[in-house]
């Protein structure tokens, strides 16, 4: 069974949680006890319909305010697909949680309230989906029941988004438009009889047709070392294995490799996964490898193929999405975590603040505030071994950590 990771996006009250509740309900994924709880709560609150958002808004404050504050991860399956959905918040102040939910998604559902059309948060979320290079974006025009299932309204919204998309710098993104009503169930899991003018796929069919590996592109193999395994037992006296997860491509016994930063060369002697050995290992697998030569390899080092070297640098140019209340400023210092490699970073240039409505950028701003996106130049205490985010998502992203609070303060996408 394939696994498909999806994130939701859209402005507050556009009905993200309701849509997920509806998907759960229509795929019979809500167990009797959970459904019963929704029925009772809806009645208690005096609603004349089932409030499906109660299925996902798991925090007290969320139910009190009727909004989503943090990402909820929801799991459900159909016959051939297992879905992981990150239900993300719509409020501007929780944009960082939206980015968190979307970072590992291969598809993103952006909800638009058919009555209000494209609003500021729609721009912003559409922009972030672009920045994160999420391959498949579904523009779900919701609440069609409240605009008399008007085709004209739907086309108007479609036109506005298509105009935005034309300004995007990620032209390979697949954008699909679906008119639906999460509350009533139109075009969610069954074809709506109220919109005969819509000939496209319904939402669930579209999601089921997504392929599992769509999230990342095949590129060059990267093996960042997490831990060195030295059992020091009689049976494995001289065993020295390097553990990590494989990104970008595959590894095979006999591959000529280089260890970074030392640039020492060696060959892969064996690939271990628990008590078995394999000739080849596919990307995404957490394995332990041994090398032909006795080399000093540490956590944070990276093993790559000799013919496929990444960029090695002590200065980075990146787009940053800022996630902390304390703004990012010129000359500020942070811990930078690039995969499992930790270095220190100093902001040596704050080049621009990018407007998330695709209207361009402001040059040399004084700071990047919470939820703002900008371009920076960073100087590093030690080199990192990177690919551009366009080529390899995992090896092209990093986080900045505030050295005083230890909070994750921002995420960067390397150019």
């Amino acid at each position, binding site marked *: *069974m*394939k*696994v498909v990771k999806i994130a939701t996006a859209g402005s507050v009250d556009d009905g993200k949680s309701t849509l997920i509740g509806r998907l759960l309900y229509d795929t019979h994924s809500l*167990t*009797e*006890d*959970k459904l019963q709880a929704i029925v009772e*709560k809806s009645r208690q609150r005096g609603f004349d319909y089932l409030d499906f958002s109660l*299925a*996902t808004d*798991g*925090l*007290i*404050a969320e*139910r009190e305010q009727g909004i989503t*504050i*943090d990402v*909820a*991860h929801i*799991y459900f*399956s159909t016959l051939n697909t297992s879905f992981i959905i990150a239900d993300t918040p719509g409020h501007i102040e929780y944009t960082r*949680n939206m*980015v*968190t939910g979307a*970072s590992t998604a291969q598809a993103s559902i952006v909800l638009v309230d058919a009555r209000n059309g494209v609003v500021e948060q729609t721009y912003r979320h559409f922009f972030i989906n672009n920045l994160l290079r999420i391959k498949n974006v579904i523009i779900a025009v919701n609440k069609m029941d409240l605009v008399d299932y008007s085709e004209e309204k739907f086309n108007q919204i479609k036109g506005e988004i298509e105009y935005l998309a034309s300004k995007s710098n990620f032209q390979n993104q697949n954008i699909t438009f679906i008119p639906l009503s999460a509350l009533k169930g139109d075009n969610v899991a069954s074809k709506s009889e109220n919109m005969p003018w819509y000939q496209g796929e319904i939402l669930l069919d579209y999601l089921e047709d997504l392929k599992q590996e769509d999230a990342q592109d095949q590129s060059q193999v990267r093996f960042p070392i*997490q*831990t060195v*395994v030295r*059992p*020091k*037992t009689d*049976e*494995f006296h001289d*065993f020295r294995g390097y*553990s990590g*997860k494989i990104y970008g491509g595959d590894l095979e016994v006999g591959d000529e490799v280089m260890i970074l930063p030392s640039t020492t060369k060696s060959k892969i002697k064996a*690939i271990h*996964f*628990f*008590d*078995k050995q*394999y*000739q080849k290992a*596919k*990307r*995404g*697998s*957490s*394995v*332990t490898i041994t090398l032909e030569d006795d080399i000093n390899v540490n956590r944070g080092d990276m093993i790559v193929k000799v013919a496929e070297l990444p960029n090695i640098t002590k200065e980075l140019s990146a787009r940053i999405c800022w996630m902390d209340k304390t703004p990012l400023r010129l000359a500020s210092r942070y811990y930078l*975590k690039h*995969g*499992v490699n930790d270095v220190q970073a100093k902001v040596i240039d704050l080049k621009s603040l990018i407007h998330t409505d695709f209207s361009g950028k402001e040059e040399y701003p004084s700071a990047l505030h919470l939820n703002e996106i900008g371009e920076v130049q960073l100087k590093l205490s030690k080199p990192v071994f990177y690919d551009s985010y366009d080529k390899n998502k995992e090896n092209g*992203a990093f*986080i900045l*950590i505030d050295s005083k609070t*230890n*909070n*994750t303060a921002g*995420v960067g996408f390397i150019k």
Partner: protein
Amino acid sequence: MINTNILKVGALESEAIYILREVVAQFEKPVLLFSGGKDSITLVRLAQKAFYPAKIPFPLLHIDTGHNFEETIQFRDNLVKELGVELIVRHVQDSIDKGRVREETGKYASRNLLQTETLLDTIEEFNFDACIGGARRDEEKARAKERIFSIRDDFGQWDEKNQRPELFDMLNGRIDLGQNVRVFPISNWTELDVWTYIKKENIQIPSIYFAHKRPTFIRDGLIWSAADDIVYREEDEQVEERIVRFRTVGDMSCTAAVLSTATDLETIVSEIRESAISERGARIDDKRSEAAMEKRKQQGYF
């Protein structure tokens, strides 16, 4: 060729192994919270795989409520012996005797909440900086909001409105003195995934997970064990022998059984697939209120 992505549980397995390796790399004194239930048994298997051929590089900690199913304790001791790992046991009874907590009384009395105090005391006693647990996001909707590295303060409190963003695979384990992290490597697993994995790996689990005859009584539509005195029973609650199994193994006083004839893993997997009631639906501690789990977590509950 090893390609863990082919199977869903394979991809989840690689993710969990990655997380466990990050814990060992980023923390000085990690510990695995072991309840004897299927989720913590699965965690132990994953830890074994993550560091093989070396031994699991952290101890197991069992917070013993004293309300255990006999079989799970035997099972625990055998497992620890087989793997050669250190086991630490701390008893809720000791916290009660020392006056740290007060025993609940009456019909719904349970020691589930009291565990928190014993856990926090133990974390302090050993200076553990990372506690690895088998909680899953599909269990309950407050759990669905939990990060993989979840920061707790001195009081074990979860600041649910101010969680660190977790992007891609990157896990930020930097903490201040006095803080610790709860780590959930199987966050993205569902109950069905856990069972599918147990079956695939042929992992041994305690016998109470399989259908067996047990003296039971019914309360609030749920089936309770009357095999011993641990679950409080009123006189008019009739004991009857039924064929049951348990879906979760928590404190006996708050864990209900389900009617089942599943005596092997194959049948359990298909039973879970068709089940109409959620796993925690048989946990009375979650039924106290809609916000029961969140409130417990704010107080440091695991």
